[in-house]
């Protein structure tokens, strides 16, 4: 059922809005977010801390913790609107058709259950197979994510594993049900650089082999640029730009995207080789949810901001391979 129509997106998010119910009313945290992913495709969602990336990820699985809630839009997985499902139906989808990997491999695993049991559970809760069969599949999964000595690791508790190993366990767990979509919320942020690269290439390899669509959330554009097909840039709960990776880097249109790319540390091009120089940081901070500007949320930090930007939220417009939401998209400032 997953690969029925090759060109249909497996996951289509349309106009997703998420807010927090507070005493002073509804605080919108994610607004009218739309995107879609096809089988085997990897989409990055990028943005600074607090822009709503994790909320978006959790919404895809119907896991937003109260007082947060989805206030509008649809999330279609293989044609089915997940937001319209009841809890029992949603549970059968989670871990089976859509799975998630979290940022903190240290706390995301249950400390008192063995690694093997936690992976097996992902199989046994969805399929009527024997424990023996589930165990066999779990061992194969551990091998698949390149955990050495699966038999031994199966019986071990998470505290015995390194961060990288735990993240591999999380990936094995997520793959247990052969999901159509894998949501990875900053899965490498807590790991050191070499392990980051290994985990990334593992995810990349798996999606190529199994045709899994991947939504990869990160605040570090540089890390994922080699792997992802498309990048969605979020700012203060909204999509501000979405482009094919190559186009985005060659010609970023939104001032915020430019700032992000400029802020990436790069390997020095000079003869010295690995000189890392830090380019411009974007000055200022993301506005608080309760103090969102009426117009473009980026205006207080934007070098191109003018009267129109302060007054009206820029609508998304087509731009080559994607979309951009900026009144002055592509313009460079006069200074």
């Amino acid at each position, binding site marked *: 059922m997953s690969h029925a129509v090759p060109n249909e997106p497996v996951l289509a998010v349309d106009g997703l809005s998420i807010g927090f119910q507070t005493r002073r009313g509804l605080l919108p945290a994610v607004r009218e977010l739309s995107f879609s992913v096809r089988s085997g495709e990897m989409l990055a969602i990028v943005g600074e801390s607090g822009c709503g990336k994790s909320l978006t990820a959790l919404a895809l*699985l119907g*896991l937003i913790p109260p007082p947060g809630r989805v206030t509008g839009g649809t999330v279609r997985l293989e044609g089915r609107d997940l937001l319209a499902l009841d809890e029992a139906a949603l*549970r*059968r*989808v*989670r*871990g*089976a058709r859509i*799975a*998630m990997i*979290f940022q*903190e491999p240290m*706390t*995301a*695993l*249950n*400390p*008192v*259950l063995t690694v093997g049991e936690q992976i097996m*559970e*992902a199989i046994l*809760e*969805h399929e009527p197979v024997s424990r023996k069969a589930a165990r066999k599949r779990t061992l194969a999964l551990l091998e698949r994510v390149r955990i050495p000595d699966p038999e031994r690791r199966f019986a071990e*508790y998470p*505290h015995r594993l390194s961060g990288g190993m735990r993240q591999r366990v*999380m990936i094995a*767990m997520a793959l*247990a*049900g052969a999901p159509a979509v894998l949501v990875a919320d900053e899965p490498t942020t807590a790991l050191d650089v070499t392990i980051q690269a290994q985990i990334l290439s593992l995810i990349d390899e798996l999606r190529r082999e199994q045709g899994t669509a991947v939504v990869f959330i990160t605040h570090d554009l540089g890390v994922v640029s080699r792997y992802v097909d498309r990048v969605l840039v979020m700012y203060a709960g909204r999509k501000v730009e979405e482009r094919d990776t190559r186009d985005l880097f060659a010609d970023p249109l939104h001032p915020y995207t430019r700032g992000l790319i400029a802020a990436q540390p790069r390997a020095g091009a000079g003869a010295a080789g690995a000189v890392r120089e830090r380019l411009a940081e974007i000055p200022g901070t993301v506005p608080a949810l309760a103090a969102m500007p009426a117009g473009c949320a980026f205006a207080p930090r934007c070098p191109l901001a003018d009267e129109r930007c302060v007054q009206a939220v820029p609508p998304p417009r087509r731009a080559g391979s994607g979309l951009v939401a900026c009144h002055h998209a592509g313009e460079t400032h006069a200074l």
Partner: protein
Amino acid sequence: MLTYLRRSAAQVVFVLLGIALINFFLLHLAPGDAAQVLAGESGAATPEYMEALRRQFGLDQPLYVQFLRYLGNLVTFDLGYSFRQSLPVSELILQRLPATLLLMGTAIGFALVAGCSLGFLAARRAGKLTDTVISIVALLFYATPVFWVGIMLIVVFSVMLDWLPVGGMTSVEANLSGLALVGDVALHLVLPAVTLGLFYLAIYARLMRAAMLEVYGQDFVRTARAKGVRPRRIAWRHVLRNALLPIVTTLGVQLGSILGGAVLVETVFSWPGLGRLAFAALFQRDLNLLLGILFCSSVVVVLVNIAVDLVYTLLDPRIELN
């Protein structure tokens, strides 16, 4: 495992030594001694007679000699002689210890099982009516004095309904044996065990609820949800296992106070245990007996604490025994 046991053994010796020392000096600080009590009772309190009594029981020796002798005797479980009861202290204690252990064990078992179940239920229905009712009931049990609960239970279940015996451990009239005796003791056990257990039941119910809710907020529960694990399995397998850890810790801490509570309950229900013996010893200034009881209670508490530690290490794989 071996190093672990060796280390706990060393701890036991050290703790018991400390307890023996403290017990001994605390009791010597109190005014009056056994000689005075005995002399007072016999009505012939001449200084010569007192002197003779003191010499007879070694009470005229310097304190450290008395203490060293006490320690030496402890090692051989010779806890001295109770002048008031005219029996060796160790014999008196061994007679009473099983009754107290039975009462404590039953009370703790009841408090743990019922308290944890109620807390578990309350946490799963957090914010709903069941939760509110359980929380109010737990608060009530928590706030009511133990002796009052005991007396009320006697009034209702023994006097008014005549379902359960008023006190004691066995029916005096009947000469029971075997299974009938077990049944008879069990019947007598119900009220004192419930009385002693209710307070701890309240504590465990509240603790369990809080622990469960805290664990529910942890990342690995979100992971389990994201995997599509059924809510029932999340509660039993993921949350409960972790929530039991603080319960076990608290249990270890509370053992001493449960023993203290036993004294009161044994008095209310004329339960023939250590508590009532201690109560009597205290009022009769029966120094040897009181020291013996305190020491034995400490041994019980220390041993059970080690057992609790072991249970904890079994429940939490992060703690390794070496």
